[in-house]
């Protein structure tokens, strides 16, 4: 079994979560990790 491809996303407001959702939809096997420096995500979209 091959190792899962890793997608990292820096930022969790508007662009980051949209990218994460889309990437998972296109390739459900992708391992997606999103980093956000604040306490909340999706706060400014």
């Amino acid at each position, binding site marked *: 079994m091959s190792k899962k491809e890793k997608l990292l996303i820096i930022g*969790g407001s508007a662009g980051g979560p949209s990218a994460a959702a889309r990437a998972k939809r296109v390739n459900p096997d992708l391992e997606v990790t999103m980093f956000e420096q604040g306490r909340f995500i999706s706060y400014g979209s």
Partner: protein
Amino acid sequence: MKTEHRVTKIDPKGKRIEVVNLANSQTQWFSYDQLIIATGARSRRLNLPGSNAKNIFTLKDLQDGLRIKNYIDEKRPGQVAVLGGGFIGLEMCEAFRLRNMEAFLFCRRDLPAGNLEKEISEKILKELQENGVHFLTYQEPAAFRLNSNGEVTSLETNQTQFPADMVLMAVGVIPNVEIANEAGAELGKTGAIRTDAAQRTNLTDIYTAGDCCEVFNLVSQDWVYTPLGDIANKQGRVAGENAAGGKATFSGVVGSAAFKVFELEVAFTGLGMQMARQYGFDVDSQVIEAESKVGYMPGSKRILIKLIFDRQSGRLLGAQMAGKEGVARRINALAVALHQKMTIDEIARLDFAYAPPFSSPMDPILIAAEQATKKIQK
């Protein structure tokens, strides 16, 4: 999903990023196959004496909003100084008035929303004044006076000294490009991260989306910096799809936005006159006022429309509107016209839906375009 984790470094050669867990200050490296930089923007702060006072706020995200709300709930400030006449400053004047505070808007120029056309800014000024906002013109903030608790008690400008119980700095945003730039990501002339229609950066397997990067303007055919949440979402989708192996593209924006100040709706799309001239167009404009619905219908309101166009080709370049009803949705028709590079003549003959509760037989847009056709060189 890792919140309260700050990414401090990107190593594009090793394909890994350095992350600090803010809860325990521990640093860890994470490796990637693909990376998306969506670091957003931060509020610009004026660097003045006293500007680190605890009752000087900026507003960018939910945490900022909560900080402001908690401060008002706790300290009951009576008088707030708002610095900057842009969208955030204007929307917050309304919010402060709703909390029964005296709001003083300090503006560097003579009108609010200085990026918009004068006719629109004048409507905004009238709306502010009718709702008890004090508007101060040609103000350059110089310093803040603090009390022994480290709180602002007054604001000094080039013109006056002014008592204030709290201050909101709403003087724009700066793209968060530092870690990307240190890793070798190219920036555009706007200072934001350079990208392309696939949302790639110049670095292998690194994409970007949102307020940290540029976006292509389809009217000016130029890469610009337009930090807005709807654009960030669209760019994010494209970056996500491509990072997952897809082939999506984002062709660009025409520059549409809307906001509300008290009862006034303001919306715009495309270029303003000054910008259009800078891009070399032979610019002319048409301003009209018309009713948002048939005059006898309850709730009908005056709408001001300004169309900006090239008088040689007749092509629409931009549109701005202000009024108390039927503005924000109406602008979208003209955004489509900009996407399609339509001429004033074509717009004047569009078949819009009509019934008395929604429009007049000649929609305000059609009236404006019809008037404008007379100025186009035949």
